[in-house]
């Protein structure tokens, strides 16, 4: 319990007990008494339905034998209401184990049965399991929501930040163009620092925008031939490849369901990184994929292997964080966005990305695993 108090103590979980006998209601209420629970007791199916309209319950304890609406009829009506469609119902009955009865209950959406006389610890445990499930569902919902809000925020912020920045940049550039060399050398320096800073900030914001767009504006996943995708990617960065004398070889690649635009972005980032962090020799890069099964999940493991400066593996997680750089800007320019964006894209595809290196100066290998999205095995065949 203690582990969860931090996030759950600010609200009590609602439990509904329905039983036509006051004595039973009282007894069960006493039994379940817990500061984390808010217990509502009603003595008929009709009142239960009224309660459900107004509240969201973690679990409903429902007596089967009641005058008026009995437990089964009540359960059927509870299931018809949108709000309570998935609320767990535990039937409580004195009828003894009767298979026919139990089946009827399960068909109506019961999740469990408790037989009278009630064993106190048994009831408590069952209820606490459903309470815990409910709390987790609520937390998960909240997390998803706040994630979405954060992404939306990043998108709006970066979009709106661009506007004033555009102005600072244009006018400082205009200042530089008109007055460079006409003021003193200090002024020229200052103007340089302003334009340089603004240009960089702009790249950061563009990066942030791209980062937030990975999930907010991603395209649907479609069957994509990676052999074609790589060809297109290489064509896009052809100038850079030629300029740097890079040699790139590509092994046979699979067909997988992905967002092709995003996947091209990943390969472009990884290849440009391999070129940027080159060692003494011209870059030699090999791209390959092999079929793998990771934790029982079939998929493909891609590798981009280079002969560059390599990496100290103690830094291997840092490089995937947004805005993180391992080198001085004047050694290796860049804003530290490429790998963070790639990671987010791979995670959107339920995959994972990591780096391996035999050590500094010995090249590095960027690896990522993409699971086959469909259960259909075809997907995983070449």
């Amino acid at each position, binding site marked *: 319990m203690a582990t969860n108090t931090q996030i759950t103590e600010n609200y009590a979980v609602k439990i509904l007990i329905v039983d036509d006998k006051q004595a039973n209601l009282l007894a069960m209420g006493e039994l379940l008494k817990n500061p984390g629970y808010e217990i509502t007791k009603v003595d008929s199916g009709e009142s239960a339905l009224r309660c459900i309209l107004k509240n969201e319950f973690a679990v409903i304890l429902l007596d089967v034998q009641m005058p008026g609406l009995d437990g089964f009829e009540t359960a059927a009506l509870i299931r018809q209401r949108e709000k309570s469609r998935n609320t767990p119902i535990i039937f409580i009955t004195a009828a003894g184990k009767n298979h026919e009865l139990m089946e009827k209950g399960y068909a109506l959406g019961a999740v469990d049965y408790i037989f009278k006389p009630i064993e106190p610890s048994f009831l408590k445990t069952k209820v606490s399991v459903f309470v815990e499930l409910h709390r987790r569902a609520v937390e998960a919902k909240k997390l998803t929501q706040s994630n979405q809000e954060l992404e939306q925020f990043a998108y709006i912020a970066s979009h709106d930040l661009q506007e004033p920045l555009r102005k600072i940049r*244009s006018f400082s*550039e205009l200042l530089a163009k008109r007055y460079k060399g006409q003021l003193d050398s200090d002024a020229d320096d200052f103007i340089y620092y302003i334009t340089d800073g603004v240009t960089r900030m702009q790249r950061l914001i563009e990066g942030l925008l791209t980062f937030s767009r990975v999930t907010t504006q991603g395209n649907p996943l479609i069957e994509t031939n990676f052999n074609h995708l790589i060809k297109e990617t290489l064509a896009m960065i052809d100038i850079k490849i030629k300029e740097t004398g890079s040699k790139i070889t590509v092994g046979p690649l699979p067909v997988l369901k992905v967002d092709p635009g995003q996947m091209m972005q990943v390969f472009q980032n990884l290849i440009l990184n391999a070129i940027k962090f080159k060692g003494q020799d011209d870059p030699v890069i090999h791209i390959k994929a092999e079929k793998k099964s990771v934790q029982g999940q079939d998929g493909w493991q891609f590798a981009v292997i280079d002969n560059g400066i390599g990496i100290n593996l103690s830094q291997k997680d840092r490089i995937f964080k947004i805005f993180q750089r391992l080198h001085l800007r004047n050694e290796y320019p860049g804003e530290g966005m490429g790998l963070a964006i790639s990671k987010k894209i791979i995670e959107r595809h339920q995959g994972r990305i990591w780096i391996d290196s035999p050590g500094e100066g010995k090249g590095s290998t960027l690896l990522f695993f993409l699971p086959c999205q469909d259960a259909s095995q075809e997907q995983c065949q070449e």
Partner: protein
Amino acid sequence: MNNDNRLKSIEILYIEDDPGDIRLTQEVLKDTKIKIKLNVVTNGKDALAYLNREGEFATALRPDLIWLDLNLPAMDGRDVLQAIKQDEHLKTIPVVILTTSAANEDIARTYALGANCYVTKPVGLEAFAKMVEQIEGFWFTVVKFPPKM
């Protein structure tokens, strides 16, 4: 040939509320070869008054080209565009949308309303100057305008 435009300066109506963008455009136009008279209004109401030569704009000349920002206070750029394109006398004036928005729905919607071209304001002085130059180059040397009424 209906090229007497070339002799007098070319009239542009620039509908833009951002003083920075107005100034920047003016500065960039200073360096341009083509003789352009940039007339600026900062809201949609003034734009329509200008085009219809009402009030203080009674002596305004009919522009050869309209540059229109989409995000205007009160009467939005889209409304201004619609008003121009639904007006028998005004609809032949080419309208260039100049905006920061690169949203597909804005692009689609403004073309549907009859915009003649859609340009996203670029970042950086050089790119901005180049854009102005290209707009000029296209509209004032490549394109033939509709005859003046």
